[in-house]
């Protein structure tokens, strides 16, 4: 993802969680990162770059991996969606098995239809 997309992604994660910019700034302060609401706004609008330390703190506030800010494209991975919503490791494992099951059955359908037509 190009660098200028990171701001957009931060904004999307924040809105998904129903957090205000002020609330995020407050939580960042608790992690020892002093950032003003105006600065966060600039970052979200891509008019200020973000440092690696700041990005790490923001990913902690949202409960996501830093990698999630750099997705090349929309992921088809169900586990990724659930991870973004802060589900536990146990849930992620179960979701991953469900996903595997769906994939396998869809594959069987493909094999069957190729055979038939």
């Amino acid at each position, binding site marked *: 993802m190009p660098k200028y997309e990171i701001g957009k992604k931060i904004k999307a994660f924040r809105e998904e969680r129903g957090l205000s910019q002020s609330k995020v700034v407050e939580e960042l302060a608790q992690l020892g990162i002093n950032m003003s609401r105006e600065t966060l706004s600039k970052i979200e609008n891509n008019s200020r770059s973000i440092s690696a330390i700041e990005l790490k703190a923001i990913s902690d506030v949202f409960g996501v991996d830093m990698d999630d800010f750099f997705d090349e494209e929309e992921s088809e991975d169900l586990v990724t969606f659930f991870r973004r919503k802060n589900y536990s490791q146990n849930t992620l494992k179960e979701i991953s098995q469900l996903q595997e099951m769906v994939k396998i059955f869809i594959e*069987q359908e493909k094999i069957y239809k190729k055979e038939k037509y």
Partner: protein
Amino acid sequence: MKKNINIPDELFRLKIKELAEETRIKFAKKGLSDIFDILSEIAFLIRKPLDVEGLSGFITYYEDRFVVYLNSSFSLGHERYTGAHELYHIMYNKDILKKEKVFIDENKYEEEEMKADVFAAEFLMPEDYVKEIFLKTVNVDKDNVEPRHVIRMHNYFKVSYKAMLKRLVQLNLCSQKRYFQLLDISTLERKDELQSITMEEGFNIDLIIPSNENYIPREYLIYVKANYENGKISYNEMEEILMFIGLTPEKLGY
């Protein structure tokens, strides 16, 4: 216990009622009326018991199709309600689903989640029919509704005790004051009592216990069987695939 029954605005409900009726007619034309049959028709339906922290179910758009997952470790009545909720998302949120891929976030699409809940009630418990069945099988004043009356009704509509009770209040067949008294029996602590009244009323307890069902659309079983018989997959592969849904090749006659 929460002292708020949370009944939706009447005009809002009537709009969603129209959508539920439209959907019901659409599937009735094909001869489909059961929520699980309907979901199987339009999505890859999975019913599987999973220990996933209060997750009743979810819907996702995956590999160009809708996948609905329902957690069958919830009671059957609850599971059917979740199914009808997901049906709303498939029917009326296609675009959002294709873009977002999955509906699990309550905050972002709060209004759609609320609509899906109202839809589920309208779909599974049609207003006129609830009134008709209430008159035929209960017919008491709204302050005199008892647990056994709710039990009769919820078994008729194959929903949970709680969903039926809420619907009776919404349709003014049961008073709000009675709601909180009647709700108490549906708590986990009093489940034995609810089960015993259910049996006294002549019903089995299927709706108030988990089905723990393992289900995938039947056509996928046909594909797996045909692929094995046509030599496209090995016996071991078939065995592994079937294991996902608690089946064995022996059970399918191999």
